[in-house]
């Protein structure tokens, strides 16, 4: 695998530190006029999501992490693992609960998700920014209330719970922003 010198450091660069893949979040070059130059970086562990600080002597190099992002279709969950397929090569991969994380509450079969692969193994799965899901349970709202003020909780087919306006009913399809977990609008069928 290639190495990156500190002078190539920039946000988004993926590197190996202490055996784990990290992404550089922030890179700061510090140097006294007559002294040692350092790169102070904030890095996010791609396995745990934790952000930590690191310091390197400028000019040092670190191993690049074989990490890349791709799009894959979610096929099914076998009770333990989640199965995904590359829509072009039809190659299939499985992701564990750790990689799927919170995303599990937004995705359903056939959805195309962002998959971050490290050495060919899924590190994390990202739901599409917007998903359309069916409401499986919510209190019937007051008749005639169409203002949407206040809102009420609604359970979706994937198990996620979002706040929806009072006029939205069980059985309806709604569009949700998975980044914020917020209701966007009612959706047409499909």
């Amino acid at each position, binding site marked *: 695998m290639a190495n990156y010198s500190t002078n190539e450091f920039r946000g988004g660069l993926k590197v190996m530190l202490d055996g784990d893949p990290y992404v550089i979040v922030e890179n700061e070059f510090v140097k*006294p006029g007559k*002294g040692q130059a350092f790169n102070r970086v904030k890095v996010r562990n791609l396995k745990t999501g934790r952000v930590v*600080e690191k310091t*390197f002597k400028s000019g040092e190099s670190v191993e690049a992490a074989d990490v890349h992002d791709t799009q894959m279709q979610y096929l099914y969950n076998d009770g333990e693992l989640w199965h995904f397929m590359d829509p072009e090569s039809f190659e299939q991969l499985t992701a564990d609960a750790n990689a799927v994380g919170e995303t599990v509450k937004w995705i359903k079969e056939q959805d195309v998700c962002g998959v971050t692969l490290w050495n060919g193994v899924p590190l994390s799965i990202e739901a599409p920014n917007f998903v359309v899901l069916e409401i499986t349970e919510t209190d019937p709202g007051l008749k005639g209330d169409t203002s949407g003020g206040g809102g009420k909780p609604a359970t979706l087919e994937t198990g996620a719970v979002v706040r929806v306006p009072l006029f939205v009913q069980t059985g309806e399809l709604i569009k949700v922003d998975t980044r914020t977990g917020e209701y966007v609008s009612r959706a047409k069928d499909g």
Partner: protein
Amino acid sequence: MTEASWRPAAELGTLRARADLLARVRGFFARAGVMEVETPVASRAAATDPALESLRTAWAGPGAAPQPLYLQTSPELAMKRLLAAGSGPIFQVCKVFRDGERGRLHHPEFTLLEWYRPGWDYRRLMEEVAELVRTALERPRLPVETLSYQELFQTPLGLDITGLDAEDLCRAALRQGIAGAEDLELSRDGWLDLLLTHRIESGLGRGCLTFVCDYPPSQAALARVRDEPEPVAERFELYLEGMELANGFQELTDAAEQRRRFSADLGRRAAVGMSGSPPDEAFLAALEAGMPESAGVALGIDRLLMVATGRRHIDEVLAFPVERA
């Protein structure tokens, strides 16, 4: 390249502020009777300081083979030749170049104000530096505080660095929670630089001019070393708003000692695989001929302009940073 990249990075108002600031600087030296000079930007000798890397170019006379020329990292050596030639007090505003440096406070070429006061002692020069900065910023009552290099670590960190070696300082860095310190291999000065840049520098010069003086002899650069029970280099730095703004010396005038430092520098460069060029013989010859005892200082104009205009990034005070140059 994006479509907008022909445009300046700095606002035009900031470029106006630069022009006004430089006019005040020149007015200050005109009133003080200090002569403005120009010396070559491209020189046949490269920087010897292991902390600096020169940019390199080449020059070919008509029909001649090209010979390397190095862009100055500071005009120091050429200006000292003028002092030895009897110039009297001199100043220069010029572009200097440093390879491998880029960041919020670093740009590979930047504007340096450098001046020399023959017959002055560095303490007196520190007072003039404060006056110059007050004039340039139009803040006549900006207060001054002065710390010794040792006190620099004492107050904020409660750390007495006297007698501490590299291992002790490594432990101090770990106690300070500097992440990744355990993986670093540094010299004693390297550890001091780490503590300074990570835990001290950003708090210096907040609302005042903070001078730090009397450095360890290992960080003397081109400053005279005063023999005391605990010898110190007669060197000072100025910090303002968390930034290193200026570096000054009681200038070393002893040619033999200067030659020793050059060869020690070249030895340290070779040890870490840096390129080296022969020392500047014309400068050494000037010291041998006799340079008057002097105090001298270099001050970063771009960072001073950042303070004047309240900017956080050096690119905001440059017309065209290197990525759009």
